[in-house]
């Protein structure tokens, strides 16, 4: 099957000769200018914003769910979304967000600060097993909550012992205890209400799926004993210090661990107390949200714009369960559009959400996001004029020269190329136990890095990539002011000197080293053969080349079972510590080369506690310099992204992170696009050197 993309690509290249026009392929004008046909890549796996992991899933979910902030469609800097303004403490550890007044979900229910608290607490809930839960660990108590070590409070019931974990199965509005038969009835819908006992104060109530810890109480009931909590120190706390849930509600709970597993009991609201406030996200009132972080986090405003942090509707989740996101048309959204139909491996249809706060700006009524696996197929459908724009990088590599003008000097007007915040690099295995002895030699590693004339890469790959010798990619500066130190750029004299030293230290000869790449992508092969050639030509080294299936290669990476491995990194947010930070910590499971040093660790600790941007950048600079000087990573180039967008699609969001908000887009068959941001041009790109 490796041949398939190649054959498709070659045939398409031949096919391109059918048009020599300004644009690539047919343009079909239609009467309907309120529908956008978007060519997405493979069939999405999840629409649940917290649980999805694939980029193409996020592109759909981002339209359906909104976050506190969003990214500016052109600059990718954080701008207000659900939150209209915010305050940040000088140490970047305490945030107060003020939500827009009158926010609503797509069913018209008000969207309040507590919905944000719910969305985040549920994403961190162990039972949901969210793959990206780590992003929430910056919140105080987040790691403990996700690890199942932080629970709500519960005083002992008749059957359940203190110290046991229980889960709320169901709530019943009746004052009387429900009988066993009600356990099998469908879950009751929880309504927001006011507890008469608590006066006019709106009280919290637990919902199905909340898990709690059974607690002891003092004989007079005024003290509760707390285990394993974070914000509240261990020991006894005043019962009045913890929020009491509604007293007239009966909760059905079930034991989750030990001998109490499966044991069911009933508890009234009076017996329960809430501590999801142990997770340091608090809804102060309907529109105010307070967050305490565990460490200074300068990128928190960017982080809360991430798909994982987007707001979901609690009632939808309670009603539809874990597979709620497959019930297109039935679930409630917080974003500009809402999913109404999901046809497997065909398309997802989204309709405009009339209750969305920015609905006045949203000009499209409908989005049809087509799932197209194969790049060549996507490009053929675009050529045929049946899709208005393609998601980034759905163009076969063999077609790019035809689009970017490197063949005839006439780039197509509907082809857009811009930098993409990521680096393509080789990892050198220096792990103490498994690393090959030759690569433990610093001089040899440096020689390898210095002997690559990366300026040859653009002509080799013809895709517009920018040669790069630093780990942090090009394009970070506008966000953070960070500039990478110079890496081991091509220097033949220095390379030969280092090689001589390596030879001496290794006792004359240099053992054979092998480059490992993953199968199925032609580009990796081309690059690896080029690197092989460079090291042969400049250093006289015979380098082996082997390829492995992706998952098998990932396992080898984990076990540090390789010499040199091809890898890449795309920024999840524009922050240099995404590339140089925790990933070279001693013993980190993500330490790819298996390298660290005391100096690096000292800098890392200082960096993580430093709230000042300039000082923080200085630490990261020194850390990156260490990594590059040691030659444990051999960066090759920074990525670019390729788009095909029909000329009648106006104001398409193009930014360095490829985060798209389609609410900004409209269709204009006169191509005038008045008021739209200009399209990025090809000029001036590809000329930047590190």
């Amino acid at each position: 099957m490796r041949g398939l993309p190649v054959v498709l690509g070659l045939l398409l290249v031949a096919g391109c000769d059918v048009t020599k026009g300004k644009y690539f392929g047919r343009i079909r004008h239609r009467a309907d200018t309120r529908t956008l046909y978007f060519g997405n890549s493979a069939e999405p796996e999840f629409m649940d914003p917290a649980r999805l992991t694939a980029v193409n899933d996020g592109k759909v979910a981002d339209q359906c769910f909104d976050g506190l902030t969003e990214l500016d469609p052109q600059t990718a800097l954080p701008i207000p979304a659900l939150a209209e303004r915010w305050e940040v403490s000088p140490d970047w550890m305490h945030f107060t967000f003020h939500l827009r007044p009158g926010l609503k979900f797509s069913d018209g229910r008000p969207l309040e600060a507590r919905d944000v608290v719910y969305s985040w607490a549920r994403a961190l809930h162990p039972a949901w097993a969210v793959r990206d839960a780590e992003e929430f660990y910056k919140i105080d108590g987040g790691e403990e909550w996700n690890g199942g070590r932080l629970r709500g409070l519960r005083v002992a019931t008749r059957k359940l012992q203190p110290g046991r974990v229980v889960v709320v199965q169901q709530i019943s509005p009746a004052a009387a205890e429900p009988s066993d038969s009600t356990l099998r009835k469908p879950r009751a819908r929880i309504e927001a209400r006011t507890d008469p006992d608590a006066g006019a104060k709106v009280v919290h109530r637990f919902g199905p799926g909340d898990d709690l810890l059974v607690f002891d109480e003092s004989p007079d009931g005024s003290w509760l004993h707390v285990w394993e909590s974070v914000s509240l120190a261990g020991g006894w706390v005043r019962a009045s210090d913890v929020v009491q849930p509604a007293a007239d509600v009966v909760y059905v709970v079930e034991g989750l661990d030990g001998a109490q597993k499966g044991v069911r009991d009933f508890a009234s609201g009076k017996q329960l107390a809430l501590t999801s406030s142990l997770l340091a996200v608090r809804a102060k009132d309907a529109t105010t949200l307070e967050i305490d972080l565990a460490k200074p986090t300068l990128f928190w405003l960017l982080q809360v714009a991430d798909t994982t942090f987007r707001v979901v509707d609690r009632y939808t989740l309670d009603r539809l369960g874990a597979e709620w996101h497959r019930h297109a048309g039935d679930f409630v959204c917080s974003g500009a559009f809402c999913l109404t139909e999901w046809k497997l491996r065909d398309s997802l249809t989204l309709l405009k959400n009339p209750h969305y706060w920015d609905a006045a700006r949203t000009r499209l009524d409908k989005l049809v996001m087509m799932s197209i696996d194969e790049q060549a197929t996507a490009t053929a459908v675009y050529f045929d004029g049946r899709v208005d724009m393609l998601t980034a990088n759905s163009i076969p590599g063999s077609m790019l020269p035809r689009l970017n003008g490197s063949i005839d000097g006439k780039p197509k007007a509907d082809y857009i190329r811009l930098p993409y915040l990521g680096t393509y690099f080789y990892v050198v295995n220096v792990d103490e136990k498994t690393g090959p002895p030759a690569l433990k030699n610093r001089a040899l590693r440096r020689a390898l890095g210095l002997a690559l004339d990366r300026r040859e890469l653009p002509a080799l790959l013809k895709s517009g990539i920018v040669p790069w010798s630093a780990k942090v990619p090009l394009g970070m500066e506008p966000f953070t002011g960070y500039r990478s130190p110079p890496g081991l750029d091509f220097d033949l004299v220095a390379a030969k000197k280092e090689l001589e030293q390596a030879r001496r230290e290794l006792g004359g000869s240099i053992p054979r080293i092998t480059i490992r790449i993953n199968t199925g992508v032609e580009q990796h092969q081309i690059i690896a053969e080029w690197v092989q050639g460079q090291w042969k030509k400049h250093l006289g080294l015979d380098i082996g080349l082997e390829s492995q299936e992706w998952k098998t290669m990932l396992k080898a990476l984990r076990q540090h079972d390789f010499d040199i491995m091809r890898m890449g990194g795309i920024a999840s947010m524009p922050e240099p510590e995404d590339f140089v930070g925790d990933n070279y910590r001693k013993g980190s499971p993500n330490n790819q080369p298996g390298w660290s040093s005391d100096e690096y660790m000292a800098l890392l600790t200082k960096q993580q506690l430093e709230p000042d941007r300039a000082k923080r950048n200085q630490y990261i600079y020194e850390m990156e310099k260490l990594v590059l000087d040691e030659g444990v990573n051999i960066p090759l180039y920074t990525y670019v992204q390729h788009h095909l967008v029909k000329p009648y699609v106006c104001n398409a969001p193009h930014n360095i992170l490829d985060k798209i908000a389609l609410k900004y887009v409209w269709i204009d068959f006169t191509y005038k696009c008045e008021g739209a941001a200009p399209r990025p041009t090809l000029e001036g790109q590809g000329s930047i050197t590190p």
Partner: protein
Amino acid sequence: MKRLVIGRILFAIPVLLVVFSLGFLLMKKTPGGPFDAEKRPPPEVEKNLRKRYHLDDHWTKQYWRELSGYLRFDLGKSLKREQSINEIIRKAFPVSATIGLIALLFAVAVGVSLGVLAASRQNSWFDHGAMFIAIMAISTPSFVLGPLLVLVASMWLGWLPAARLDGASSYILPALALGLIYAASIARLARASVLDVIRQDYIRTARAKGLSEGKVIWKHAVRAGLQPVVTYLGPATASIMTGGFVVETIFQLPGLGTYLVTAAKDSDATMVTALMVFYASLLMMMNLLVDIAYGWIDPRVRDARS
């Protein structure tokens, strides 16, 4: 006939059990899991994931959990997509079957008529021409034929959509790309066996009795001559319905073939095992249908059985 059907169904049970067990064990031994990525999640997250998908249970417990689901015709959930596999098959298989059926009808209609006509005009220009085209078609894999068809019919001429299911016209190119190779094989089979039958005594008798040439060929020769074609059709039907991965990818059809390939790539153990079992039962069912069809086509087989 009844005995044949019952016997086959009883035989299918141990076969499917072996297929299931093999699939289960092979996937347990495959490196990597559906949650692997470049960046490894913290231990808390890995623990939560393992717990959610029961991966921390002993393998015998997992085996029994899945097997007992199969006994209730519940193939479980895909690990990667956390979606019911029954639902995926229910939605995706009809698409594969429709495309396969169209391709099959096309292959039989074109293949049989070409083969019979070629046989009845042996060594004529028509015979040589048809067999030349058949050889060409057999040697062209669908991943070359598909894009070629897209290039000509969609990109150059603009007559048919390049991909995706969107109206009746979008079935034409995929069915062609999928069916042509089978049409060619059938044509060659049909030609050879009809030629064989034409030389038989009973055909000579039919001719001697003064039947018209058309009646001799189409009534007597073809019926007997189709037997190898029917034998071929059993596995061909199964493979046309299941082996559509390439065509499904080129034309972005929401069929089942792609799920098997992506599931294998994702190390989605439950999905791979379920599809293996599903395809195995499909293949056995097709072979049973072929055996039943023999009896219908050739009275001698029917008589021998009863």
